[in-house]
């Protein structure tokens, strides 16, 4: 019964959002049934499409898992976009610097570069928050802007494809070394190593958060910083750590976007969404929908990946702009966050906490439900 309540509220929120989506499709003069079938067909119609959906889900999953780490430490990371770009840039630099290195060495180095790039971009707002009390929401947003301009500068200048210098000056790198490409797992599809890598990352973060002292400290800081400090845990260091881990995962998402792409190069259109596909924001949606739990974020990301690939098909077949998917994502966020109150009402009705079955030692530290605390909703 309690499991039902836990899962049913976000599902209900999604249903309401999809109802609005159906309304929009009707308003655009199409039947919602044919809209839905073409979306399902686009996302799961063939093996190739399932693979494409999984690939679309990878950045959402990685960013989303990073979001859960930050949220558990009670930090809001809106900087996914910038961290994706930072990871992509540093990994691309690695691939450009040593292109002829054998794959077994180059690929891990490229991945490491992405992790470090993202971690740096995440650690900056962490340091600013921990040691200068700068609101992380603002600093991450500002660093998104800085990252985009840095990418524009590097791709128009130092990192531009030599062919483009005297050509049309398209801001992109040369085609990167094949030794750095994420290997394709099933021939004929786009399914690449990034997919299992992202799932492993989610499991790894789950273990770190709930099975290691480090994870315990992160969650303790998120749950009650004063109590954590009294227990000898450095609040400052854990805030930096949470944002650095969160950023590293987004940086890895940047690696999969560059080295899992068919063109195998980093291209900018001057904005951030052109490269990231707004994964830095959509990952928040996936994490939220997964109850801010790393493992639930896996199916949730796959769902939102299918929404994106499905919307592409919707545009191709019924000429309904795929911007519909972004609008729906926004509605889902609104409904899910609004459902907290509905959820606590359900909690009271069921007279028990619905998350009591998840392994969470911090529960003993305070009375409120774990998720509510992670959301930072009630901190009186």
């Amino acid at each position, binding site marked *: 019964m309690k499991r039902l309540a836990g899962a049913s509220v976000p599902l209900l929120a999604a249903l309401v959002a999809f109802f609005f989506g159906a309304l929009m499709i009707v308003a*655009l003069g199409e039947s919602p049934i044919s809209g839905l079938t073409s979306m399902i067909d686009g996302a799961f119609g063939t093996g190739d499409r399932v693979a494409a959906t999984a690939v679309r889900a990878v950045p959402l999953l990685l960013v989303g898992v990073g979001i859960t780490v930050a949220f558990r430490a009670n930090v809001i990371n*809106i900087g996914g976009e910038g961290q994706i770009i930072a990871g992509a840039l540093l990994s691309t630099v690695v691939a450009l610097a040593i292109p002829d290195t054998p794959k077994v060495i180059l690929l891990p180095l490229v991945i490491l570069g992405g992790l470090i790039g993202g971690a740096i971009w995440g650690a900056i707002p962490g340091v600013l928050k921990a040691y200068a009390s700068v609101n992380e929401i603002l600093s991450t*947003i*500002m660093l998104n802007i800085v990252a985009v301009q840095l990418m524009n500068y590097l791709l128009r200048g130092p990192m531009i494809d030599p062919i483009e210098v005297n050509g049309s000056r398209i801001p992109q790198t040369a085609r990167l070394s094949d030794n750095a490409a994420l290997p394709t797992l099933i021939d004929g599809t786009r399914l690449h190593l990034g997919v299992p890598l992202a799932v492993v990352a989610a499991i790894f973060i789950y273990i770190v958060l709930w099975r290691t002292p480090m994870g315990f400290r992160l969650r303790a800081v998120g749950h009650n910083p004063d109590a954590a400090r009294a227990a000898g845990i450095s609040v400052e260091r854990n805030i930096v750590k949470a944002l650095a881990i969160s950023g590293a995962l987004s940086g890895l998402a940047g690696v999969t976007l560059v080295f899992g792409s068919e063109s195998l190069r980093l291209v900018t259109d001057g904005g951030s969404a052109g490269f990231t596909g707004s994964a830095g*924001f959509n990952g928040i*949606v996936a994490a939220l929908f997964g109850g801010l739990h790393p493992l639930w974020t896996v199916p949730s990301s796959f769902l939102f990946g299918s929404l994106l690939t499905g919307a592409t098909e919707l545009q191709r077949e019924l000429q309904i702009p795929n911007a519909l998917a972004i*609008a729906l994502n926004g509605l889902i966020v609104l409904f899910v966050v609004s459902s907290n109150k509905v959820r606590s009402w359900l909690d009271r009705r069921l007279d028990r906490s619905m998350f009591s079955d998840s392994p969470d030692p911090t529960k003993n530290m305070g009375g409120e439900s774990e998720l509510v605390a992670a959301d*930072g909703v009630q901190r009186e």
Partner: protein
Amino acid sequence: MASLSSSPPTGFSVSNFFTVSVLVGTLSTAVRFAVPYLLAALGETIGQRSGVLNLGVDGVMLLGGFGAYYAVLETDSHLFGIAVGLAVGLFMGVVYACVTVFLDAEQGISGIGIFLFGLGFSDLLFQELVGTPLPIRPLPRLDQLSAVGAWFEPLVDIDVIGPLLFDHDLLTYLAFALVPAAWWLLTKTTFGMNIRAVGENPQAADSLGVSVARTRFIAILIGNAMAGLAGAALALQLAIFQHNLTNGIGFIAVALVYFGAWRPRWVMAGALLYGIVTATRIRWQSLGIIPQGASDVAAMAPALITILALVLLARRVRGPAALTRPFSRH
């Protein structure tokens, strides 16, 4: 934004960039560039003073901007366009107020929801209803209006002061007039006192009989209406709409509120700073004084300055104590 800057005179070099007329021209453009930032940030200031953070400003701006653009495209009436922008903002305000005030949703995240919805839905409407970017009639400056133009024309011709002060459109004057208006509202009116009270200590305000929910609801409505107006100002000044027209202006507006320490005149200073940096960068670039690469680096400047300001201010200036905290009676 590039289309806002007037086309460069030919044969310019670094030496005569610093002539008075070019400087005045750049500053005059800067004032206009500052308008969307200013309107959005002033609205956000009022909302935050009541204790509600709205990260969805950018989305509301996009929706208001599209509404205003489409209204002008169909009716050719700028006033109607502005009204539509305001109405769209008000509507989104009702949505956001319901979500944050009545359903106690986490504000940072629900704002992202509003942003994504605005980003997607404005693009959806634009692609369905318009398709390719059709320019609209640009927003006229006051001296081009038949009603008051005769009064303004001689003023525009005054050296330096003319282009700086009298060569603007109605929304620019409105935006800057709203700075003292917002200050007056927040500090001199009972409603403003209530806004600040529920932003500082909602429990105390509640015990004194101030309705926290109603006060926040209205503050959010004002904030979102101004965000809608800011979007309208952007779209009408650029005389165009496209996917993600704002390109993050709404997020910067939120940062400007912190930058301005929740005080309208400092928020205005921040908006002007963004206007000046943007106008200077575009002017320099169009004159070929700095290459594209340096221009990209220069585009980081406002964000870096904002971060620096936040570092310097964060521990000296205290924001509304109840910011981002939902209120419920226990």
